[in-house]
């Protein structure tokens, strides 16, 4: 294992998959000559040339659709959105064309495309640039969604996404691009299956279910709670769709208490579905109401203090745990 950044891990995943399969190419705004708005595609144009690393105009609906059309006839495009807040301009392509094609054609045309880019609030980007899109896309059958929180997961999940035969959204964390973490050596193939959560910390008193930005918050909360003799188990979902229900149910069956820490909004958020499924499947295992920590239900304010009030954080997770423990 060696230590690399989340950004570098994504870059390695892209390079390895583009190298491995001639049908794989990267397309998006500023991915080539500019080396990526967040430098995720640094060096790829030099290495693979302009037929594989393709700059597009600011035209999300157009290039997302172009990618889907190319995928229908056998290519495996990786389409970068500079941020998933811009994916709404291509919403029709992502929800109406990519995931419907396989069903509508009676199984004749699958769409092996990867949409990737930063997702979720970053820092003071205001209402238009701060969307956590996972709950919107999770509502669409035919899409798969993963949310890597570590460099290792970023590499392993992105590589798996590219090889999947369905449209996959890799929702990256903008704030994590410079985070470092341990990843297998470069010569070792790293593929992490979609739909496999990871238990980040074992515990017996409460399960904190987290993903993406809330993973470090949940881990910090657990450390803090340990000082007060509350032993929290922390799960990183890693994939939103498919979701690792067995791991969730097993953990809750053990701890009997749940706090869901999510980076999206509360109304119809990811946690709403998880809470529903837990009570439906293992109602008897619960000793307390299921708690959720999500954003406040408002458009994101620019002001730093207000933005902090909207977002989930470690203190909010600790408070939620203490209400039920």
């Amino acid at each position: 294992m060696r230590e690399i950044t989340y950004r570098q891990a994504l870059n390695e995943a892209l390079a390895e998959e583009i190298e491995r399969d001639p049908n794989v190419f990267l397309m998006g705004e500023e991915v080539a000559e500019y080396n990526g708005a967040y430098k995720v595609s640094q060096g790829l144009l030099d290495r693979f040339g302009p037929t594989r690393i393709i700059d597009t105009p600011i035209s999300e609906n157009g290039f997302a659709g172009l990618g889907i059309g190319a995928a229908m006839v056998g290519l495996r495009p990786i389409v970068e959105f500079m941020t998933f807040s811009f994916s709404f301009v291509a919403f029709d392509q992502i929800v109406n064309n990519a995931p419907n094609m396989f069903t509508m054609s009676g199984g004749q045309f699958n769409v092996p495309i990867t949409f990737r880019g930063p997702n979720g609030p970053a820092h003071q980007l205001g209402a238009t640039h701060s969307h956590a899109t996972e709950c919107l896309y999770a509502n669409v059958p035919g899409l798969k969604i993963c949310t890597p929180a570590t460099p290792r997961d970023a590499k392993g999940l992105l590589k798996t996404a590219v090889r999947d035969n369905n449209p996959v959204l890799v929702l990256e964390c903008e704030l994590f691009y410079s985070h470092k973490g341990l990843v297998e050596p470069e010569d070792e193939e790293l593929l992490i299956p979609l739909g496999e959560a990871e238990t980040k910390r074992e515990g017996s008193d409460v399960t904190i279910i987290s993903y993406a930005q809330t993973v470090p918050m949940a881990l910090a909360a657990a450390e803090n709670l340990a000082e007060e003799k509350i032993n929290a188990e922390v799960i990183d979902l890693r994939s939103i769709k498919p979701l690792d229900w067995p791991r969730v149910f097993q953990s809750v069956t053990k701890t009997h208490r749940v706090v869901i820490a999510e980076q999206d909004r509360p109304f119809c958020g990811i946690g709403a579905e998880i809470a529903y499924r837990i009570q439906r499947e293992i109602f008897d295992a619960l000793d307390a109401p299921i708690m959720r920590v999500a954003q406040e239900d408002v458009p994101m304010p620019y002001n730093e203090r207000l933005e902090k009030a909207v977002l989930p954080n470690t203190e909010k997770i600790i408070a939620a745990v203490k209400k039920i423990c």
Partner: protein
Amino acid sequence: MPRPEQRDEVEMLAMMLLIRRFEERASQQYQAQKIGGFCHLYIGQEAVVAGAVAAARPDDYLVTAYRDHAHALARGTSADACMAELFGKATGCSRGLGGSMHFFDKENHMYGGHAIVGAHVPLAAGMAFASKYRKEDRVTLCFFGDGAINQGGFHEALNLAGLFKLPVIFICENNFFAMGTSVKRSTSLEHVVDRAEGYDIPGEIVDGMNFREVRDKLSEIIVSIRKDPHPAFVEARTYRYRGHSMSDPASYRTKEELEKFRLDDPITRLRAQLTREGKLSNEQFGEIDKRAKEEALASVRFAEKSAQPSLEDLYKYTYLRGVDVDVSARKPSPSAGTAGKQERAADTAAP
């Protein structure tokens, strides 16, 4: 005279007749409530798709909007598979899962009827992109109506096609009405073809009621694209005799206008041309038409007796290889740890 690479004219006349007779039957079956949802008929516009297909190679990509029955038939999808799709049967060209607006036939290079106006134009750019990426000489034929030319996706696709020099022909089937709104009331330009100029894409106007004119113009363009990939735009002026869909009485236009186009019927015209040139006798025409009628009628019988898609297959085509790890229906194993892994390994199971 057709060029060697163009398809036989009598054969194409037979195709146009099959499209016409098939859709007449579809109309009848819709009224008998055998067909659900929406149903948009192509009657009157047959020369456009027939002309294009006559000029193209069978493996060229073809993609169109929701008025798509004719495009599948023109590509060689059987009338049986088309009618069965309208009936929602498992034997349909999309296994009964697509319906009238979503005909697909991979084997015959029919890359879909697409029902969101303008949303398939970027897909066509993608297919053309794939041709160029793989250094194939396949051309993409992208059909759409005049209603699509004011959609963002259309403009973005034209820009990308122009920018990347993609081998795609944008074929606007201008029937002068986007549902009930005339081009005059929807479009800032007088001539649809002028949209192409803004993207530096060469544009042509053809008489969409004239099979030979459509075919020859398309042939010329296709030859040029195969030599050197680039996009092109063709505005085919045509007319649909029926309403926008089965539920539309088309009261927004006059009987006189409709009659004017009916007198210029594309099938009648090609028949007259062939008869005049001694290539088709009245008896032969009668025989071809009889066969088309029989094929259309037989397709109804086929659709009627075909099976419904199975309920067990409901989730079969949501994800390829059924990779959905939704095991919520199962109770979790009491022992945490290995059980989760086993269940995940069974990710091909139905949810």
